[in-house]
């Protein structure tokens, strides 16, 4: 898959309360979750982004609570993927499980400025900064997690390999 868009750059330790504040967790509606994305950091964030845009952050993106509402809000707001220096554990796991593409690359984050246009190629494992022409490598993904992605997330994987057909 190739993801291309304008980048929106954030700092280190963006927590899931920042991605979607807990006061909005009383729903399972993805559109409603998306409507509060990054609200406490930038109330106008949703007006600025366009479908396909790429979220970029420093270390430990998605730290804090286990709420899957966070990757869901990002995905349903139309952002195509997240590139960060590192991801907090549960956020990382949730993203693979529910199908939000995420890419870890410290050098890419260093080489991307707010607003740069990037092209992320998941198969080639590269992130190209189209504004500067520089290309960066993505940290590789363990084979099992590659399988999860290919199956279309954990639930599809479970359906395919774990559930008895009745």
């Amino acid at each position, binding site marked *: 898959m190739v993801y291309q868009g304008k980048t929106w750059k954030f700092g280190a330790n963006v927590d899931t*309360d*920042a991605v979607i504040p807990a006061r909005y*967790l009383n729903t399972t509606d993805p559109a409603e979750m998306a409507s509060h994305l990054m609200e406490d950091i930038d109330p106008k964030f949703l007006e600025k982004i366009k479908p396909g845009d790429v979220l970029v952050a420093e270390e430990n993106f998605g730290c804090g609570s286990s709420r899957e509402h966070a990757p869901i809000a990002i995905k349903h707001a139309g952002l195509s993927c997240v590139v960060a220096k590192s991801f907090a554990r549960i956020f990382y796991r949730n993203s693979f499980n529910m199908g939000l593409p995420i890419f870890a690359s410290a050098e890419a984050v260093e080489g991307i400025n707010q607003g740069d246009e990037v092209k992320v190629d998941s198969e080639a494992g590269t992130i190209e900064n189209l504004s500067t022409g520089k290309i960066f490598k993505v940290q590789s993904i363990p084979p099992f997690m590659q399988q999860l992605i290919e199956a279309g997330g954990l639930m599809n994987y479970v359906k395919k390999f774990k559930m008895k057909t009745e």
Partner: protein
Amino acid sequence: MIRSMTISEKILAEHAGLREVEPGQLINARVDLILGNDITAPMAIEEFRRAGANKVFDPEKVVLIPDHFVPNKDIKSAQQCQFMRQFSREQNLTHYYEVGEMGIEHALLPELGLVLPGDLVIGADSHTCTYGALGAFSTGVGSTDFAAAMITGEAWFRVPETIKIIYQGKRRPWVDGKDLILYTIGKIGVDGALYKAIEFAGEAISNLSMDSRFTMANMAVEAGGKNGIITPDKVTKEYVQSRAKRPYKFQYSDGEAKYGQTLDIDVTRIEPQVAFPHLPSNVRPISAAGNVPIDQVVIGSCTNGRLEDLRTAGRILKGRKRAPYTRLIIIPATQEIYRQAMKEGLFEIFLDALAVISTPTCGPCLGGYMGILSKGERAVATTNRNFVGRMGHPESEIYLANPAVAAASAILGRIGGPEELGL
């Protein structure tokens, strides 16, 4: 020969049906218990149904607890809880706890003996790591993992490398598990244990009460850890033997087990700690807190809402009143803790101190309800996170501390320790 393993590796290996595992290995393992709450379970139940599943793998091993926004804070929360309640009835779950018997999940499960040493537990809540205090491997996951485990009774894990932290020496007065863990997070950072297991060890851990151990394991996730674990001992045995209704197993790290990192901490030098806004790693000793006026104090949560915490608060609040414009909210974590605190006369002390006492709920810790902060307000909380906007307005501030400092701060109307009150 089997490789030497840490306690975390041993529990994972046993549940994966393997003789040994090593850090980095991806395994599929059987879980002893899975947990969801009113925030995470509704989404998981929808996924469970979408997958076409009809029955949970074992109605005795799926625990559902409404605790975050209950008693229902608004109509939407009421609907989420109703959805979860209907599912629990339909699936005939043994361990669904309704308002009136429920408590904050991570206090309730150990109290009821549902989680035991040697268990492998996943919960759709980041503070599921709390049960590591019992010598179990427990970790937080999201709703999809919970949904999948409801069907299969299994979960996938990447075996974590272990960081061993050895706490030496005797604690100073008014220093408890909260201070040791805040100090540790301050030292290694909020991603200092990212993807890793933290093994808390040493003399100061052996001397720690069970309640304080829960506090430490609870906040392992605040250092990025996958789990926090404490080797079971006589304190553990004392705690679990009257509660367990099934067999359990004490696991121990091998003497030759390999650690990714070992850290020594001299406990004698640790004062009560305060984590300043907006990260749990932003800690200062109480003596360096300076003059910080406070609008609200919260004593409660899965981190510090247990009996020992309330007793500590009681020792400080006894015969005193909170400062005139500082609200004091005390939230016993379970009905049993609530009842016991009442029996011991703690409620009398709290009420005389002009505190409000709430039914168990996660409420204010995550800015749900029951003590939301306005713009510019500051709170001292015994909770676990002081992120921007966590307890309310994005321009409010949260200072994390132990129950003694929280209670003392309520009386002083600014951040301060019990010693300022001559205690």
